[in-house]
């Protein structure tokens, strides 16, 4: 009972924090049909600033820390990224009216990491004065890339298999979920498509390359490299660090507005996406929390670090993930996976999962 009352008090307190209140404010504005617009260019520069700052923090921390401590959390992060995709493939993918490719893409997006969610978690940890390894933010790419690669690879393996089956039945363009839209129409419009040979084998390196070239990861890796090899302390203290929270609040506002405007899109796809995007962040986060605790007791990974691991597992990518998946699994329906992630997954991760895992960590810390 103590846990629940603690958790509830924490939860209310965190709703009042700038991060969460701006998120909720954004949703309210969008719900009321406000005309407020934050220019896209500003969002891009904010994302750059936030991730560069996280990268710089991590880089400067790595410079004076013992790298062997990082091994176990990094391995866990990568494992989680891969595992989450398979969870989606075999739970969400089995539900009625859910196409398997859409489920795999959704899993990929939920396995990938949201830079803004992670930034929110790091801010809350600092506000609550919970210690965490400064390099914890550097776990991001180790979960993000494996998740996206796994999703694209297993989706393409699945599609290839479907196509082989289709060809074996000698009746091309039977009712296979792969092709979108009206078959007879598409056949007339694109004659080459129905006789198309088996899809080429998926190459892994281009996917990795594309995620590394994405705006979020490149900003973060740049920060990381500068933190390790250069001396960015002065610009960090005068510019990146003080602006971080203010910019984060603007980004949260935008994400709240975006979430609300995407809810309508989600209504057009199966309801199972709603169930999945509410439950999955907690399941993923709890698995990560368990693994993190293991690292806590064996290698002394801090409880704050455990929270970061849990939150990045609970988060779903909203900046760099969608374009990568769209290009890698073009036949998956973007309304399904982007709707599930942006409209529900991200608000759940930021608004519910962060306070939840913070509370959980505080309970463990008190014992």
């Amino acid at each position: 009972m103590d846990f629940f009352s603690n958790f509830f008090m924490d939860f209310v307190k965190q709703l009042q924090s700038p991060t969460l209140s701006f998120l909720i404010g954004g949703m309210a504005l969008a719900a009321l049909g406000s005309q407020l617009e934050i220019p896209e260019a500003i969002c891009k520069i904010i994302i750059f600033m936030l991730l560069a700052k996280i990268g710089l923090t991590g880089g400067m921390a790595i410079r004076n820390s013992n790298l062997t401590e990082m091994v176990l959390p990094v391995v866990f992060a990568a494992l989680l990224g891969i595992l989450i995709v398979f969870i989606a493939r075999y739970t969400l993918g089995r539900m009625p009216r859910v196409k398997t490719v859409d489920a795999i893409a959704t899993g990929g997006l939920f396995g990938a990491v949201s830079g803004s969610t992670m930034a929110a978690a790091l801010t809350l940890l600092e506000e609550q004065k919970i210690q965490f390894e400064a390099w914890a933010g550097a776990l991001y790419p180790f979960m993000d890339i494996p998740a996206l690669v796994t999703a694209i690879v297993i989706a393409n393996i699945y599609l290839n298999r479907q196509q082989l089956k289709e060809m074996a039945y000698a009746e091309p363009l039977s009712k296979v979920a792969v092709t979108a839209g009206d078959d007879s129409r598409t056949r007339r419009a694109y004659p080459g498509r129905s006789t198309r040979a088996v899809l080429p084998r998926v190459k892994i390196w281009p996917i990795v390359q594309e995620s590394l070239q994405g705006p979020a990861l490149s900003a973060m890796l740049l920060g990381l490299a500068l933190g390790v090899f250069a001396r960015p302390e002065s610009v960090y203290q005068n510019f990146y660090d003080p602006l971080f929270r203010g910019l984060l609040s603007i980004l949260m506002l935008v994400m709240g507005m975006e979430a609300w405007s995407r809810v309508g899109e989600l209504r057009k796809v199966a309801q199972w996406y709603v169930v999945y995007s509410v439950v999955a962040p907690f399941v993923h986060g709890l698995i990560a929390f368990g693994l993190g605790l293991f690292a806590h007791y064996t290698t002394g990974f801090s409880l704050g670090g455990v929270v970061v691991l849990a939150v990045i597992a609970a988060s779903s990518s909203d900046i760099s993930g969608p374009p990568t998946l769209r290009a890698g699994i073009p036949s998956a329906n973007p309304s399904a996976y982007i709707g599930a992630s942006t409209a529900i997954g991200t608000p759940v991760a930021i608004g519910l999962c962060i306070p939840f895992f913070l509370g959980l960590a505080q309970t463990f810390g008190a014992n």
Partner: protein
Amino acid sequence: MAKPAKKLVIITEKILLKKIAQIIEESGASGYTVLETGGKGSRNVRSSGQPSVSDTKANVKFEVLTPDRDLAEKIADQIGMQFFLDFAGMIYLCDAEVLYGQSFCGPEGC
């Protein structure tokens, strides 16, 4: 004098920008113009006006001048077959008359 030509217009998702530009370049067309756009179609309203944290929803419009219908159709077929089952897009063709444009008409003018 005006030189008759075809104007090929391709409206599609911004995410395809580089791939389509590559197809047009490889086809031998002398150049193209790209505009950022938004609008409404069978796949619903896309881009414009919404706050956005990712680029997947923005549209682009390509305009390509080709000397004849064959080249325009070649480009259109390649793009249609490769992308338009999975991505939103449409392609149409107009008659055009080029008045000025050295790369198109050659050094002696149109």
